[in-house]
């Protein structure tokens, strides 16, 4: 863990073309400050890994709307017409992954597993070009791990060791994505002194977190 950094310092770390994981589910549990700052910075050609495209002004939406995203990897884009439009025009590449496969592949990427073996997707378009492995008479799809250069994490509380807690359904992909990127940047709602978060309440150990965004108020 390093010291808390400003939003600008965080944005400066992320180059054009970076592969960025973004937590959240329909924009809930997404680090909105980082998304807004990235969108405002005019980054180009990002690949974003995020569960859903949310709406044009929530979740990853602002990044896509601002034209920062070249490729979207996730499970659902049904309620973001901007994403639908950019996909049709060819401006945005979309790779759809079943949600359970998506999160488990990210976990595998962070936990040193060679891939996952899932029944999900067998016999569908998703299985095309992928290995099917039979284990004890049942078929499983071999899906490869997913990792990113950066994971942008929305936390409820954070201490100066980098320990994170999440709140209710804003948890979702955050603890998993915090495992699987070269650089993990957390945007907490509050930073508390070390020792305030009980060990059993920590959802992401600080040793996984590289940077924490300073609160401006």
């Amino acid at each position: 863990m390093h010291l808390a950094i400003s939003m600008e310092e965080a944005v400066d770390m992320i180059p054009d073309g970076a592969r960025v994981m973004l937590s959240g589910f329909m924009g809930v549990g997404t680090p909105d400050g980082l998304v807004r700052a990235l969108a405002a910075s005019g980054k180009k050609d990002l690949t974003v890994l995020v569960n859903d495209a949310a709406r044009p002004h929530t979740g990853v939406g602002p990044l896509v709307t601002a034209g920062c995203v070249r490729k979207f990897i996730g499970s659902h884009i049904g309620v973001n017409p901007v994403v639908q439009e950019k996909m049709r025009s060819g401006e945005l590449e979309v790779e759809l992954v079943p949600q359970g496969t998506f999160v488990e592949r990210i976990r595998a990427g962070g936990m040193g597993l060679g891939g996952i073996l899932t029944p999900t997707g067998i016999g569908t378009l998703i299985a095309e070009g992928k290995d099917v492995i039979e284990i004890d008479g049942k078929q499983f799809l071999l899906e490869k791990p997913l990792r990113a250069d950066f994971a942008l994490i929305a936390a409820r509380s954070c201490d100066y060791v980098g320990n994170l807690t999440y709140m209710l359904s804003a948890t979702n992909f955050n603890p998993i994505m915090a495992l699987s990127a070269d650089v993990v940047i957390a945007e907490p709602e509050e930073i508390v002194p070390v020792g305030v978060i009980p060990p059993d309440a920590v959802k992401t150990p600080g040793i996984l977190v590289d940077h924490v965004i300073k609160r401006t108020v």
Partner: protein
Amino acid sequence: MKDLVVMDPKEIIARRVSLEIRPKTLVNLGIGIPTLVSDHLTENLGVFFQSENGVVGLGHRPAEGMTDRHLTDAGGTFTSAVPGASIIDSAFSFGLIRGGHLDLTVLGGLQVDAQGHLANWMIPGKFVPGMGGAMDLVTGAKKVIVAMLHSAGGVSKVVPECTLPVTSQRRVDLIVTELAVMAPLDDGLYLLETGPGVSVDEVVAATDADLIIKGDVPQMDLSRTA
């Protein structure tokens, strides 16, 4: 429970599906018609509703002024948590789904065919919403019910064979529309019940798939409780 007299087709479907919910089970309700199902449930069945985003024990929609942006359902809508609710992360949530811990999932559909295949995640060349959690839900849940209107734009959504990309190779267990309750079995699609005031002939006329009809087919009994 809602009043039957004013029930529209979607409410008929939701009410009929609600009768399939067993006490003390874990249930996932998809977006759209499936979401309506919980409103038709008799109280105190000890059912826990799960949403993909990690809530085990979804409650009713909170009153205005009592919402919190950290507590939402799989549609991103404000929700509440029942006493005894718990929160799990997305990997855990789909572990429950994939691992056979989910007793029932109710999903909407674009098409279901006579083999029980569901298609509900894309219309090639037209609209690609994505599968979200649907592929995992249909593959992993112990019981899968498709809850959808019988047709769209006058075209039957119950077809001989899906022309849209399927969601899973797994056969769904039950299909509930406002016109019929159907079950795909090894030898084809059985018509189990017709909608309130709907005749077997009307169902057959409205359905592209062949229906197997054995003996008298009862109408849905929406007055009973689960």
